[in-house]
Protein backbone atom coordinates (compact mmCIF):
# COMPACT_ATOMS: atom_id res chain seq x y z
CA UNK A 1 0.00 0.00 0.00
CA UNK A 2 2.57 2.55 1.07
CA UNK A 3 6.23 2.73 0.22
CA UNK A 4 8.63 4.86 2.15
CA UNK A 5 10.22 7.14 -0.40
CA UNK A 6 13.57 8.89 -0.13
CA UNK A 7 12.20 12.29 0.97
CA UNK A 8 10.32 10.63 3.83
CA UNK A 9 13.49 8.79 4.84
CA UNK A 10 15.44 12.05 4.94
CA UNK A 11 12.79 13.96 6.90
CA UNK A 12 12.42 11.11 9.39
CA UNK A 13 16.16 10.71 9.83
CA UNK A 14 16.41 14.43 10.59
CA UNK A 15 13.60 14.17 13.13
CA UNK A 16 15.24 11.21 14.85
CA UNK A 17 18.51 13.15 14.91
CA UNK A 18 16.63 16.09 16.39
CA UNK A 19 15.16 13.94 19.15
CA UNK A 20 18.53 12.45 20.05
CA UNK A 21 20.69 15.56 19.61
CA UNK A 22 20.21 16.87 23.17
CA UNK A 23 20.96 13.48 24.72
CA UNK A 24 24.04 12.98 22.57
CA UNK A 25 25.37 16.47 23.25
CA UNK A 26 25.07 16.00 27.03
CA UNK A 27 26.89 12.66 26.88
CA UNK A 28 29.62 14.01 24.60
CA UNK A 29 30.17 17.13 26.69
CA UNK A 30 30.45 15.07 29.86
CA UNK A 31 33.72 13.72 28.42
CA UNK A 32 34.94 17.13 27.24
CA UNK A 33 38.09 18.35 28.99
CA UNK A 34 37.08 22.02 28.65
CA UNK A 35 36.15 23.43 32.03
CA UNK A 36 33.42 25.84 31.04
CA UNK A 37 31.87 23.92 28.21
CA UNK A 38 32.66 25.49 24.86
CA UNK A 39 34.48 23.69 22.05
CA UNK A 40 35.94 20.19 22.32
CA UNK A 41 39.29 20.09 24.12
CA UNK A 42 40.01 16.41 24.41
CA UNK A 43 38.63 13.33 26.12
CA UNK A 44 38.52 13.03 29.89
CA UNK A 45 36.63 11.10 32.53
CA UNK A 46 37.62 13.44 35.33
CA UNK A 47 34.15 15.00 35.64
CA UNK A 48 32.83 11.64 36.79
CA UNK A 49 35.51 11.71 39.47
CA UNK A 50 34.49 15.23 40.49
CA UNK A 51 30.96 13.92 40.83
CA UNK A 52 31.95 11.18 43.26
CA UNK A 53 33.87 13.70 45.36
CA UNK A 54 30.90 15.97 45.82
CA UNK A 55 28.93 15.12 49.00
CA UNK A 56 26.16 17.48 47.89
CA UNK A 57 25.55 15.48 44.71
CA UNK A 58 25.84 12.12 46.40
CA UNK A 59 23.28 13.21 48.98
CA UNK A 60 20.94 14.38 46.21
CA UNK A 61 21.35 11.02 44.48
CA UNK A 62 20.59 9.22 47.74
CA UNK A 63 17.51 11.40 48.30
CA UNK A 64 16.30 10.80 44.76
CA UNK A 65 16.49 7.03 45.14
CA UNK A 66 14.98 6.95 48.63
CA UNK A 67 12.14 9.08 47.32
CA UNK A 68 11.65 6.94 44.23
CA UNK A 69 11.79 3.62 46.12
CA UNK A 70 9.48 4.65 48.95
CA UNK A 71 6.88 6.32 46.77
CA UNK A 72 6.97 3.51 44.20
CA UNK A 73 6.38 0.87 46.89
CA UNK A 74 3.34 2.68 48.27
CA UNK A 75 1.98 3.65 44.85
CA UNK A 76 2.38 0.12 43.48
CA UNK A 77 0.35 -1.41 46.29
CA UNK A 78 -2.38 1.24 46.19
CA UNK A 79 -2.38 1.45 42.39
CA UNK A 80 -2.63 -2.32 41.93
CA UNK A 81 -5.55 -2.55 44.35
CA UNK A 82 -7.17 0.38 42.60
CA UNK A 83 -6.76 -1.05 39.11
CA UNK A 84 -8.05 -4.42 40.31
CA UNK A 85 -10.99 -2.96 42.24
CA UNK A 86 -12.10 -0.63 39.47
CA UNK A 87 -12.26 -3.41 36.91
CA UNK A 88 -13.90 -5.97 39.23
CA UNK A 89 -16.46 -4.32 41.47
CA UNK A 90 -19.17 -1.73 41.04
CA UNK A 91 -19.97 0.97 43.50
CA UNK A 92 -21.97 4.18 43.35
CA UNK A 93 -20.00 7.01 41.77
CA UNK A 94 -17.53 4.64 40.14
CA UNK A 95 -17.65 6.47 36.84
CA UNK A 96 -16.90 9.80 38.49
CA UNK A 97 -14.00 8.34 40.47
CA UNK A 98 -12.54 6.54 37.47
CA UNK A 99 -12.60 9.89 35.72
CA UNK A 100 -11.02 11.68 38.67
CA UNK A 101 -8.19 9.17 38.58
CA UNK A 102 -7.04 10.76 35.36
CA UNK A 103 -6.60 14.21 36.86
CA UNK A 104 -2.96 13.60 37.86
CA UNK A 105 -2.29 12.29 34.36
CA UNK A 106 -3.69 15.29 32.49
CA UNK A 107 -3.25 18.26 34.81
CA UNK A 108 -0.23 20.52 34.19
CA UNK A 109 2.31 19.45 36.79
CA UNK A 110 2.85 22.98 38.02
CA UNK A 111 -0.82 23.31 38.96
CA UNK A 112 -0.63 20.02 40.84
CA UNK A 113 2.60 21.14 42.51
CA UNK A 114 1.35 24.49 43.81
CA UNK A 115 -1.96 22.96 44.93
CA UNK A 116 -0.02 20.44 47.02
CA UNK A 117 2.38 23.08 48.32
CA UNK A 118 -0.50 25.20 49.51
CA UNK A 119 -2.30 22.23 51.04
CA UNK A 120 0.79 21.22 53.04
CA UNK A 121 1.38 24.81 54.12
CA UNK A 122 -2.18 25.30 55.32
CA UNK A 123 -2.30 21.94 57.13
CA UNK A 124 1.04 22.73 58.75
CA UNK A 125 -0.19 26.09 59.96
CA UNK A 126 -3.35 24.67 61.48
CA UNK A 127 -2.42 21.12 62.58
CA UNK A 128 1.37 21.15 62.68
CA UNK A 129 1.56 18.20 60.27
CA UNK A 130 3.51 17.93 57.01
CA UNK A 131 6.69 19.97 57.43
CA UNK A 132 8.06 20.35 53.90
CA UNK A 133 10.76 17.82 53.12
CA UNK A 134 11.18 14.19 52.17
CA UNK A 135 7.81 13.20 53.63
CA UNK A 136 5.80 15.72 51.65
CA UNK A 137 7.69 14.78 48.50
CA UNK A 138 6.84 11.10 49.03
CA UNK A 139 3.17 11.94 49.57
CA UNK A 140 3.12 14.02 46.39
CA UNK A 141 4.92 11.47 44.26
CA UNK A 142 2.64 8.65 45.39
CA UNK A 143 -0.31 10.83 44.40
CA UNK A 144 0.75 11.19 40.78
CA UNK A 145 2.08 7.61 40.55
CA UNK A 146 -1.08 5.80 41.70
CA UNK A 147 -3.12 6.46 38.53
CA UNK A 148 -0.32 5.31 36.22
CA UNK A 149 0.05 1.99 38.07
CA UNK A 150 -3.73 1.59 38.15
CA UNK A 151 -4.03 2.22 34.39
CA UNK A 152 -1.39 -0.39 33.54
CA UNK A 153 -2.89 -2.98 35.94
CA UNK A 154 -6.42 -2.30 34.77
CA UNK A 155 -5.55 -2.74 31.10
CA UNK A 156 -4.07 -6.14 31.96
CA UNK A 157 -7.19 -7.07 33.94
CA UNK A 158 -9.31 -6.37 30.88
CA UNK A 159 -7.31 -8.83 28.81
CA UNK A 160 -7.46 -11.58 31.45
CA UNK A 161 -9.56 -14.70 31.02
CA UNK A 162 -12.27 -14.69 33.75
CA UNK A 163 -12.50 -18.48 33.53
CA UNK A 164 -9.25 -18.84 35.48
CA UNK A 165 -10.58 -17.03 38.52
CA UNK A 166 -13.95 -18.74 38.17
CA UNK A 167 -12.15 -22.07 38.23
CA UNK A 168 -10.34 -21.11 41.44
CA UNK A 169 -13.63 -20.22 43.09
CA UNK A 170 -15.31 -23.39 41.83
CA UNK A 171 -12.50 -25.41 43.36
CA UNK A 172 -13.26 -23.88 46.73
CA UNK A 173 -10.74 -21.03 47.04
CA UNK A 174 -11.88 -18.04 49.07
CA UNK A 175 -11.80 -14.58 47.48
CA UNK A 176 -8.58 -13.73 49.26
CA UNK A 177 -6.95 -17.00 48.20
CA UNK A 178 -8.07 -16.45 44.62
CA UNK A 179 -6.62 -12.95 44.61
CA UNK A 180 -3.35 -13.99 46.20
CA UNK A 181 -2.68 -17.27 44.41
CA UNK A 182 -4.40 -16.75 41.06
CA UNK A 183 -5.10 -13.13 40.16
CA UNK A 184 -1.98 -11.50 41.53
CA UNK A 185 0.49 -13.89 39.89
CA UNK A 186 -1.31 -13.32 36.58
CA UNK A 187 -1.17 -9.58 37.13
CA UNK A 188 2.48 -9.59 38.11
CA UNK A 189 3.94 -8.49 34.75
CA UNK A 190 1.60 -5.51 34.76
CA UNK A 191 2.37 -4.74 38.40
CA UNK A 192 6.09 -4.80 37.69
CA UNK A 193 5.67 -2.69 34.55
CA UNK A 194 3.49 -0.23 36.46
CA UNK A 195 6.02 -0.05 39.28
CA UNK A 196 8.83 0.65 36.83
CA UNK A 197 6.77 3.34 35.16
CA UNK A 198 6.08 4.88 38.56
CA UNK A 199 9.75 4.66 39.47
CA UNK A 200 10.84 6.44 36.28
CA UNK A 201 8.19 9.11 36.78
CA UNK A 202 9.52 9.75 40.27
CA UNK A 203 13.14 9.85 39.09
CA UNK A 204 12.23 12.27 36.31
CA UNK A 205 10.02 14.56 38.28
CA UNK A 206 11.30 18.05 38.79
CA UNK A 207 8.34 20.40 39.11
CA UNK A 208 6.42 18.63 41.90
CA UNK A 209 9.59 17.96 43.90
CA UNK A 210 10.76 21.55 43.42
CA UNK A 211 7.61 22.94 45.05
CA UNK A 212 7.03 20.34 47.77
CA UNK A 213 10.59 19.89 49.00
CA UNK A 214 12.05 21.42 52.10
CA UNK A 215 15.47 22.23 53.49
CA UNK A 216 17.97 19.38 53.16
CA UNK A 217 15.85 17.27 50.82
CA UNK A 218 17.29 18.19 47.44
CA UNK A 219 16.87 15.68 44.62
CA UNK A 220 18.97 15.30 41.49
CA UNK A 221 16.54 17.12 39.15
CA UNK A 222 16.35 20.03 41.61
CA UNK A 223 20.14 20.06 41.84
CA UNK A 224 20.47 20.03 38.05
CA UNK A 225 17.96 22.86 37.71
CA UNK A 226 19.70 25.13 40.20
CA UNK A 227 23.11 24.33 38.67
CA UNK A 228 21.88 25.05 35.16
CA UNK A 229 20.47 28.35 36.39
CA UNK A 230 24.02 29.28 37.46
CA UNK A 231 25.56 27.98 34.22
CA UNK A 232 26.14 24.52 32.78
CA UNK A 233 29.23 22.78 34.11
CA UNK A 234 30.82 19.55 32.81
CA UNK A 235 30.12 17.64 36.02
CA UNK A 236 26.41 18.38 35.61
CA UNK A 237 26.69 16.82 32.15
CA UNK A 238 28.34 13.78 33.72
CA UNK A 239 25.55 13.55 36.26
CA UNK A 240 22.91 13.89 33.54
CA UNK A 241 24.62 11.20 31.48
CA UNK A 242 24.33 8.77 34.37
CA UNK A 243 20.66 9.66 34.88
CA UNK A 244 19.92 9.21 31.18
CA UNK A 245 21.67 5.85 31.26
CA UNK A 246 19.59 4.65 34.23
CA UNK A 247 16.28 5.75 32.71
CA UNK A 248 17.01 4.34 29.25
CA UNK A 249 18.03 0.95 30.65
CA UNK A 250 15.01 1.02 32.97
CA UNK A 251 12.65 1.80 30.10
CA UNK A 252 14.01 -0.97 27.93
CA UNK A 253 13.72 -3.49 30.76
CA UNK A 254 10.16 -2.34 31.49
CA UNK A 255 9.21 -2.64 27.81
CA UNK A 256 10.67 -6.12 27.55
CA UNK A 257 8.88 -7.21 30.72
CA UNK A 258 5.56 -6.04 29.41
CA UNK A 259 5.82 -7.29 25.87
CA UNK A 260 6.01 -11.07 25.65
CA UNK A 261 2.67 -11.72 27.33
CA UNK A 262 0.83 -9.04 25.41
CA UNK A 263 -1.54 -10.16 22.74
CA UNK A 264 -2.30 -8.17 19.62
CA UNK A 265 -5.62 -6.64 20.54
CA UNK A 266 -4.48 -5.21 23.84
CA UNK A 267 -3.54 -1.60 24.27
Amino acid at each position, binding site marked *: *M*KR*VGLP*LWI*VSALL*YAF*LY*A*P*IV*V*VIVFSFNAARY*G*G*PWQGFTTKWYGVLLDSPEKLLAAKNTFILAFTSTMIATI*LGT*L*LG*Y*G*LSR*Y*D*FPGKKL*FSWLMYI*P*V*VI*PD*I*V*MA*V*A*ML*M*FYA*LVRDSLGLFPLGMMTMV*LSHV*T*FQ*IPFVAIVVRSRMVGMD*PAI*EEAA*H*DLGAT*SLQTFWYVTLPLLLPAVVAGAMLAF*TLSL*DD*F*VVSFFTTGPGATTLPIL*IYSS*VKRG*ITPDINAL*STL*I*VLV*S*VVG*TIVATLLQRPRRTQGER
Partner: protein
Amino acid sequence: MKKAQPTRAIRYGELLTRGGQRLRSAMTSGWGIAWVTLFLLVPLLGIAWISFMTRGTYGEIQWPATFANYQRLLGFGVLGFDSQYPTIILRSLVLGGGATLVCLIAALPLSFFIAGQPEGRKQIALTLVVIPFWTNLLIRTYAWQILLGQDSVLARLAVGLGLAEVGRPLYPSAFAVYIGMLCAYLPFLVLPLYTAVEKLDWSIAEAAADLGANRVQVFRHAILPQLLPGMVAGILLVFIPAIGQFVIPDLLGGAKTVMLGNAIQQQFGPSRDWPFGSAIAFVGMAVVMLGLWINTRVTAAKGEEGML
Protein backbone atom coordinates in the same frame (compact mmCIF):
# COMPACT_ATOMS: atom_id res chain seq x y z
CA MET B 1 -30.88 5.60 30.91
CA LYS B 2 -29.78 3.61 33.92
CA LYS B 3 -30.33 -0.09 33.72
CA ALA B 4 -31.81 -1.64 36.82
CA GLN B 5 -29.01 -3.49 38.55
CA PRO B 6 -29.70 -6.92 39.96
CA THR B 7 -29.23 -7.07 43.72
CA ARG B 8 -26.94 -10.04 43.35
CA ALA B 9 -24.57 -10.87 40.55
CA ILE B 10 -21.98 -13.47 39.81
CA ARG B 11 -18.63 -11.74 39.43
CA TYR B 12 -15.85 -14.00 38.28
CA GLY B 13 -17.23 -17.08 39.97
CA GLU B 14 -18.36 -15.30 43.11
CA LEU B 15 -21.92 -14.55 44.08
CA LEU B 16 -21.89 -11.01 45.38
CA THR B 17 -24.61 -8.74 46.69
CA ARG B 18 -24.48 -5.06 45.92
CA GLY B 19 -23.28 -4.42 49.47
CA GLY B 20 -20.60 -7.07 49.07
CA GLN B 21 -19.35 -5.34 45.93
CA ARG B 22 -19.21 -2.03 47.74
CA LEU B 23 -17.28 -3.53 50.63
CA ARG B 24 -14.79 -5.08 48.24
CA SER B 25 -14.48 -1.81 46.34
CA ALA B 26 -13.71 -0.03 49.59
CA MET B 27 -11.08 -2.64 50.48
CA THR B 28 -9.41 -2.45 47.07
CA SER B 29 -10.04 0.82 45.19
CA GLY B 30 -10.90 2.68 48.37
CA TRP B 31 -7.35 3.32 49.53
CA GLY B 32 -6.15 4.75 46.26
CA ILE B 33 -9.26 6.85 45.80
CA ALA B 34 -8.96 8.20 49.34
CA TRP B 35 -5.30 9.02 48.82
CA VAL B 36 -5.78 10.88 45.54
CA THR B 37 -8.83 12.66 46.93
CA LEU B 38 -7.00 13.87 50.02
CA PHE B 39 -3.72 14.82 48.42
CA LEU B 40 -4.90 16.11 45.08
CA LEU B 41 -8.61 16.72 44.88
CA VAL B 42 -8.82 18.61 48.16
CA PRO B 43 -5.75 20.73 47.32
CA LEU B 44 -7.22 21.55 43.91
CA LEU B 45 -10.46 22.66 45.51
CA GLY B 46 -8.30 24.63 47.95
CA ILE B 47 -6.77 26.46 45.01
CA ALA B 48 -10.21 27.38 43.76
CA TRP B 49 -11.11 28.74 47.19
CA ILE B 50 -7.88 30.63 47.83
CA SER B 51 -8.01 32.27 44.42
CA PHE B 52 -10.81 34.41 45.89
CA MET B 53 -8.81 35.43 48.96
CA THR B 54 -6.58 38.43 49.51
CA ARG B 55 -2.84 38.58 50.00
CA GLY B 56 -1.76 39.97 53.37
CA THR B 57 1.17 42.31 53.93
CA TYR B 58 3.59 39.45 54.56
CA GLY B 59 2.23 37.13 51.92
CA GLU B 60 -0.30 35.45 54.18
CA ILE B 61 -3.74 34.48 52.95
CA GLN B 62 -6.52 36.71 54.23
CA TRP B 63 -10.16 37.54 53.95
CA PRO B 64 -12.06 39.37 52.48
CA ALA B 65 -13.18 37.26 49.56
CA THR B 66 -12.71 39.15 46.35
CA PHE B 67 -12.73 38.92 42.58
CA ALA B 68 -9.66 41.15 42.45
CA ASN B 69 -7.30 38.31 41.46
CA TYR B 70 -9.38 37.44 38.43
CA GLN B 71 -9.85 41.09 37.55
CA ARG B 72 -6.08 41.50 37.64
CA LEU B 73 -5.72 38.50 35.32
CA LEU B 74 -8.15 40.12 32.92
CA GLY B 75 -6.16 43.36 32.95
CA PHE B 76 -8.02 45.59 35.39
CA GLY B 77 -5.04 47.34 36.97
CA VAL B 78 -4.96 50.04 39.63
CA LEU B 79 -4.20 52.60 36.93
CA GLY B 80 -6.59 51.35 34.29
CA PHE B 81 -5.87 48.60 31.77
CA ASP B 82 -2.76 46.59 32.51
CA SER B 83 -1.84 44.27 29.67
CA GLN B 84 0.69 42.14 31.58
CA TYR B 85 -1.47 39.17 32.51
CA PRO B 86 -3.84 39.14 29.54
CA THR B 87 -0.65 39.07 27.46
CA ILE B 88 0.68 36.09 29.41
CA ILE B 89 -2.56 34.15 28.98
CA LEU B 90 -2.69 34.97 25.30
CA ARG B 91 0.98 34.13 24.86
CA SER B 92 0.54 30.76 26.59
CA LEU B 93 -2.26 29.92 24.20
CA VAL B 94 -0.28 31.13 21.18
CA LEU B 95 3.00 29.45 22.18
CA GLY B 96 1.18 26.28 23.25
CA GLY B 97 -0.86 26.26 20.05
CA GLY B 98 2.19 27.05 17.93
CA ALA B 99 4.18 24.28 19.57
CA THR B 100 1.30 21.88 18.95
CA LEU B 101 1.21 22.87 15.30
CA VAL B 102 4.97 22.39 14.91
CA CYS B 103 4.69 18.96 16.56
CA LEU B 104 1.82 18.03 14.28
CA ILE B 105 3.75 19.02 11.16
CA ALA B 106 6.71 16.94 12.33
CA ALA B 107 4.64 14.00 13.59
CA LEU B 108 2.80 13.47 10.28
CA PRO B 109 5.79 12.36 8.18
CA LEU B 110 7.26 10.44 11.10
CA SER B 111 4.03 8.48 11.65
CA PHE B 112 3.81 7.54 7.98
CA PHE B 113 7.46 6.59 8.05
CA ILE B 114 7.04 4.26 11.03
CA ALA B 115 3.85 2.73 9.65
CA GLY B 116 5.61 2.13 6.33
CA GLN B 117 8.42 0.12 7.87
CA PRO B 118 8.46 -3.66 7.47
CA GLU B 119 6.87 -5.51 10.38
CA GLY B 120 10.05 -6.30 12.28
CA ARG B 121 11.45 -2.77 12.17
CA LYS B 122 8.20 -1.05 13.10
CA GLN B 123 8.53 -1.72 16.81
CA ILE B 124 12.14 -0.54 16.78
CA ALA B 125 11.28 2.66 14.92
CA LEU B 126 8.50 3.37 17.42
CA THR B 127 10.64 2.58 20.46
CA LEU B 128 13.31 4.94 19.11
CA VAL B 129 10.74 7.75 19.28
CA VAL B 130 9.74 6.83 22.81
CA ILE B 131 13.19 6.44 24.40
CA PRO B 132 14.09 10.17 24.45
CA PHE B 133 10.68 10.81 25.97
CA TRP B 134 11.70 8.69 28.95
CA THR B 135 14.85 10.66 29.63
CA ASN B 136 14.56 13.62 31.94
CA LEU B 137 12.90 16.64 30.32
CA LEU B 138 15.08 19.00 32.33
CA ILE B 139 18.22 17.44 30.87
CA ARG B 140 16.89 17.45 27.31
CA THR B 141 15.91 21.09 27.75
CA TYR B 142 19.15 22.42 29.14
CA ALA B 143 21.01 20.48 26.45
CA TRP B 144 19.45 22.86 23.93
CA GLN B 145 21.23 25.70 25.73
CA ILE B 146 24.45 24.01 24.63
CA LEU B 147 23.14 23.17 21.15
CA LEU B 148 21.83 26.69 20.49
CA GLY B 149 24.59 28.52 22.34
CA GLN B 150 26.76 31.17 20.78
CA ASP B 151 29.60 28.96 19.48
CA SER B 152 27.54 25.91 18.67
CA VAL B 153 27.45 24.24 15.27
CA LEU B 154 23.78 25.12 14.88
CA ALA B 155 24.34 28.77 15.69
CA ARG B 156 27.14 28.98 13.14
CA LEU B 157 25.00 27.20 10.58
CA ALA B 158 22.22 29.70 11.18
CA VAL B 159 24.65 32.58 10.71
CA GLY B 160 26.04 30.94 7.57
CA LEU B 161 22.56 30.63 6.11
CA GLY B 162 21.83 34.23 6.99
CA LEU B 163 19.13 33.26 9.46
CA ALA B 164 20.81 34.82 12.49
CA GLU B 165 23.15 37.70 13.22
CA VAL B 166 26.81 37.02 13.97
CA GLY B 167 27.58 36.61 17.65
CA ARG B 168 23.94 36.51 18.67
CA PRO B 169 23.01 33.25 20.41
CA LEU B 170 19.86 31.46 19.28
CA TYR B 171 18.63 31.33 22.85
CA PRO B 172 16.97 32.77 24.89
CA SER B 173 14.25 33.27 22.32
CA ALA B 174 10.78 32.16 21.33
CA PHE B 175 12.49 30.06 18.65
CA ALA B 176 14.41 28.16 21.32
CA VAL B 177 11.18 27.60 23.27
CA TYR B 178 9.56 26.10 20.16
CA ILE B 179 12.57 23.83 19.68
CA GLY B 180 12.37 22.70 23.30
CA MET B 181 8.63 22.07 23.03
CA LEU B 182 9.02 20.09 19.80
CA CYS B 183 11.72 17.98 21.40
CA ALA B 184 9.63 17.39 24.52
CA TYR B 185 6.25 16.70 22.97
CA LEU B 186 6.83 15.15 19.54
CA PRO B 187 6.41 11.58 20.90
CA PHE B 188 3.04 12.55 22.40
CA LEU B 189 1.71 13.26 18.91
CA VAL B 190 3.51 10.49 17.08
CA LEU B 191 2.00 7.70 19.20
CA PRO B 192 -1.73 8.37 18.59
CA LEU B 193 -1.09 9.54 15.05
CA TYR B 194 0.89 6.42 14.21
CA THR B 195 -1.96 4.28 15.55
CA ALA B 196 -4.35 6.16 13.26
CA VAL B 197 -2.06 5.72 10.24
CA GLU B 198 -1.83 1.99 10.98
CA LYS B 199 -5.61 1.73 10.85
CA LEU B 200 -5.93 3.74 7.62
CA ASP B 201 -8.18 2.29 4.98
CA TRP B 202 -6.05 2.87 1.91
CA SER B 203 -8.72 1.69 -0.50
CA ILE B 204 -10.52 5.00 0.09
CA ALA B 205 -7.38 6.87 -0.97
CA GLU B 206 -7.04 4.64 -4.02
CA ALA B 207 -10.67 5.21 -4.92
CA ALA B 208 -10.18 8.96 -4.63
CA ALA B 209 -7.12 8.76 -6.85
CA ASP B 210 -8.99 6.64 -9.41
CA LEU B 211 -11.71 9.23 -9.49
CA GLY B 212 -9.17 11.83 -10.49
CA ALA B 213 -8.18 13.49 -7.25
CA ASN B 214 -4.66 14.85 -7.19
CA ARG B 215 -2.29 14.02 -4.33
CA VAL B 216 -3.23 17.02 -2.22
CA GLN B 217 -6.91 16.29 -2.71
CA VAL B 218 -6.42 12.63 -1.81
CA PHE B 219 -4.70 13.63 1.39
CA ARG B 220 -7.20 16.33 2.23
CA HIS B 221 -10.37 14.35 1.53
CA ALA B 222 -9.50 10.66 1.81
CA ILE B 223 -6.71 10.43 4.38
CA LEU B 224 -7.02 13.40 6.72
CA PRO B 225 -10.60 12.64 7.86
CA GLN B 226 -9.50 9.14 8.89
CA LEU B 227 -6.60 10.55 10.91
CA LEU B 228 -8.71 13.12 12.69
CA PRO B 229 -9.59 11.23 15.92
CA GLY B 230 -5.94 10.27 16.50
CA MET B 231 -4.94 13.82 15.69
CA VAL B 232 -7.34 15.35 18.20
CA ALA B 233 -6.08 13.02 20.94
CA GLY B 234 -2.47 13.86 20.10
CA ILE B 235 -3.12 17.59 19.85
CA LEU B 236 -4.60 17.60 23.34
CA LEU B 237 -1.76 15.48 24.70
CA VAL B 238 0.62 18.20 23.50
CA PHE B 239 -1.40 21.35 23.96
CA ILE B 240 -2.45 20.67 27.56
CA PRO B 241 1.01 20.17 29.05
CA ALA B 242 2.52 22.78 26.70
CA ILE B 243 0.44 25.69 27.99
CA GLY B 244 1.38 24.73 31.56
CA GLN B 245 5.07 24.33 30.76
CA PHE B 246 7.38 25.97 33.21
CA VAL B 247 10.83 24.46 32.66
CA ILE B 248 11.12 25.02 28.89
CA PRO B 249 10.27 28.76 28.81
CA ASP B 250 12.28 29.19 31.99
CA LEU B 251 15.49 27.69 30.58
CA LEU B 252 15.19 28.50 26.88
CA GLY B 253 13.12 31.66 26.83
CA GLY B 254 13.42 35.03 28.42
CA ALA B 255 11.17 37.80 29.68
CA LYS B 256 9.37 37.73 26.34
CA THR B 257 8.29 34.11 26.65
CA VAL B 258 6.80 34.11 30.17
CA MET B 259 3.93 31.64 30.13
CA LEU B 260 1.22 30.65 32.62
CA GLY B 261 3.53 28.16 34.34
CA ASN B 262 6.21 30.80 34.89
CA ALA B 263 3.65 33.29 36.16
CA ILE B 264 2.40 30.71 38.67
CA GLN B 265 5.94 30.00 39.81
CA GLN B 266 6.59 33.72 40.17
CA GLN B 267 3.57 34.16 42.43
CA PHE B 268 4.26 31.09 44.57
CA GLY B 269 7.98 31.80 44.69
CA PRO B 270 9.50 35.28 44.72
CA SER B 271 6.30 37.38 44.78
CA ARG B 272 4.61 35.23 47.41
CA ASP B 273 1.11 36.17 46.35
CA TRP B 274 -0.59 32.81 46.74
CA PRO B 275 -4.16 33.96 46.11
CA PHE B 276 -3.17 35.50 42.78
CA GLY B 277 -1.00 32.48 41.92
CA SER B 278 -4.01 30.25 42.67
CA ALA B 279 -6.14 32.31 40.32
CA ILE B 280 -3.62 31.80 37.50
CA ALA B 281 -3.39 28.07 38.28
CA PHE B 282 -7.15 27.83 38.29
CA VAL B 283 -7.36 29.44 34.86
CA GLY B 284 -4.76 26.94 33.63
CA MET B 285 -6.80 24.10 35.05
CA ALA B 286 -9.97 25.43 33.44
CA VAL B 287 -8.30 25.45 30.02
CA VAL B 288 -7.24 21.82 30.54
CA MET B 289 -10.72 20.73 31.57
CA LEU B 290 -12.14 22.50 28.54
CA GLY B 291 -9.71 20.62 26.32
CA LEU B 292 -10.68 17.28 27.87
CA TRP B 293 -14.33 18.07 27.49
CA ILE B 294 -13.81 18.80 23.80
CA ASN B 295 -11.97 15.49 23.46
CA THR B 296 -14.85 13.63 25.12
CA ARG B 297 -17.29 15.29 22.74
CA VAL B 298 -15.23 14.47 19.67
CA THR B 299 -14.68 10.83 20.60
CA ALA B 300 -18.29 10.45 21.75
CA ALA B 301 -19.45 11.79 18.39
CA LYS B 302 -17.22 9.23 16.72
CA GLY B 303 -18.63 6.50 18.92
CA GLU B 304 -15.18 5.44 20.05
CA GLU B 305 -13.53 4.96 23.38
CA GLY B 306 -11.90 8.15 24.61
CA MET B 307 -8.18 8.59 24.51
CA LEU B 308 -8.06 7.61 28.14
